[in-house]
């Protein structure tokens, strides 16, 4: 179960005790409150809302939080609060933009339901999107896949060559091991694969082949 907590959102007023409400009625209360309807005495407060606005779209008449006109904070705190408010507003704008851009309707619903503790399943994809782990993911994906595919082709070509020669040398074993390492070792594997191809293009013989030949020369049958 993955719970999302938005720092910008806090509950003010008296929330109904969960013992007396099912999750569905709880959800409905929340929904009504956010829509400005219903007769609940609690609501969500958006801390980035303008001073005295009451936050959210709820029943602002009941609001008595720090942004209300009833607050007796000093003027020196006011500038700091306004700065924080501006920063929070930027963060929320950024978050809203990211949610709009990155998530489809189903995922948005999942996030919303999780925010109010409704037990719905959150996929790894949603978690990764939320954590920002998928920035430039397509490019990284392609690079990693290409790098690892080089190891795959290395193993394939080595075994085909062995069948052609009719022998499997120590150097061949080393080439296969390097190919497997390229596929299975994270980060370093695909980077080595791309460097290997760079050496192949630049010099006409890949680094792995050079190592393999070296081992054949010293340990192999040739």
């Amino acid at each position, binding site marked *: 179960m993955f719970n999302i907590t938005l720092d910008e959102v806090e509950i003010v007023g008296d929330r109904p005790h969960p013992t007396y409400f099912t999750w569905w009625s709880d959800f409905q209360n929340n929904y009504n409150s956010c829509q400005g309807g219903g007769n609940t005495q609690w609501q969500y407060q958006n801390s980035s809302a303008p001073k005295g606005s009451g936050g959210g779209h709820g029943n602002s008449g009941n609001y008595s939080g720090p942004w209300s006109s009833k607050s007796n904070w000093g003027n020196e705190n006011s500038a700091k609060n306004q700065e924080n408010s501006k920063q929070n507003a930027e963060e929320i704008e950024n978050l809203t933009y990211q949610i709009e851009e990155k998530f489809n309707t189903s995922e948005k619903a999942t996030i919303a339901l999780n925010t109010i503790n409704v037990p719905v399943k959150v996929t790894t994809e949603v978690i990764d999107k939320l954590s920002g782990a998928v920035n430039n993911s397509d490019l990284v*994906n392609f690079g990693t896949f290409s790098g690892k595919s080089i190891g795959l082709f290395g193993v*394939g070509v080595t075994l085909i060559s062995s069948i052609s020669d009719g*022998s499997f040398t120590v150097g061949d074993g080393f080439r296969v091991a390097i190919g497997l390492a390229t596929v299975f070792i994270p980060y370093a594997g695909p980077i080595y694969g791309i460097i290997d191809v760079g050496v192949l293009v630049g010099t006409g013989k890949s680094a792995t082949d050079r190592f393999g030949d070296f081992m054949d020369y010293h340990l192999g049958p040739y």
Partner: protein
Amino acid sequence: MIFLEIFDYMYFRIAQFYVKIERNSKVYTSATIAVTLTQFLILIDIVGTVLLENYSQENRAIIIRNFFMVFIVLLAILNIFNYKRYYNAYDKYNEKWSCEDKKRRILKGIVVFILFVIPLMYIPILLSLKDYTI
């Protein structure tokens, strides 16, 4: 297709290992390539056995030289097929297999390990058992 189901399970088990490392969520490249490698090695083992048993080294070299690009293109097609097949598929498999009991999970893990290792070791073992250089 039982074979595809086995490969799907293989992908799932390897991807489970990489899920914390890669975190790209769309496709777990190591798992996808491991499946491609296994499929290609099974094919190479069958073709290789036929070639090694029925042709001399000279003839094998000619055949493989002529069909080398076919093997490479086949490997590329398999790789792309698996990439497409397992794109965004981890969550689906996780839902399907994450709740299996421990004993069954260990047994299936051994099957996956054998399925990966035997095709990989087959050609080197075959070549070391008999002299195919003539």
